[in-house]
């Protein structure tokens, strides 16, 4: 399956892009996706503990099972205000 991944804030600098498309085995979780992304974008490895993840517009933890066409977002802790 294929999922779209969007990066926000300085994650765009770490990856060098705002968006990527990843192909994953069916039934993959966000954790599997993140490990695959670390291979492609090694600078993400330093952000493992602080990365927030969303599918669509809702936060999800790393056990979340993805499905074809999901829009995943990865970003650092938020800083509004």
């Amino acid at each position, binding site marked *: 399956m294929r999922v779209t991944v969007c990066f*926000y804030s300085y994650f765009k600098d770490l990856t060098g892009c705002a968006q990527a498309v990843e192909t994953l085995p069916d039934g993959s979780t966000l954790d599997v996706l993140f490990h695959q992304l670390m291979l492609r974008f090694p600078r993400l490895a330093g952000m493992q503990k602080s990365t927030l993840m969303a599918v669509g517009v809702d936060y999800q933890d790393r056990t979340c099972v993805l499905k074809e066409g999901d829009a995943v977002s990865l970003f650092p802790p*938020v800083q*509004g*205000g």
Partner: protein
Amino acid sequence: MKRQLTLTTEPIDEPALLAQRSLSDGMGAVVCFLGVVRGTEGNASIRALEYEVFQRMAEHQVNLLFDQLAQRWPVESVRLVHRLGLVKVNAPSLWVEVVAPHRGEAFAACQWLIDEMKQVVPIWKKPVPGDR
């Protein structure tokens, strides 16, 4: 509960926001909070902050917070305005208004909303170095 969220690159127009206020006869408290950009970030001088948003998610998350706020306090209305893009030092970046029957719940709801917003609403700021 009436609710209004504005995410905008335009300056926050306080007089216009105050002119748009409406409250019923049972309301006894209006709490307004204005957040402004500080001239330092850590120990470094900055001239502005650049705000970035994940708009659809931010709108969704703020509405979830509004839902929770309505369940916890008897708030009649809440309005939240957040600046995006470049905001210079001393300029407002955040304006929040809570209208409630009494000051205790108005203060508590306003404080809670801002604290929660800073935890879950996907907005980020990047310091722009330099003196004003």
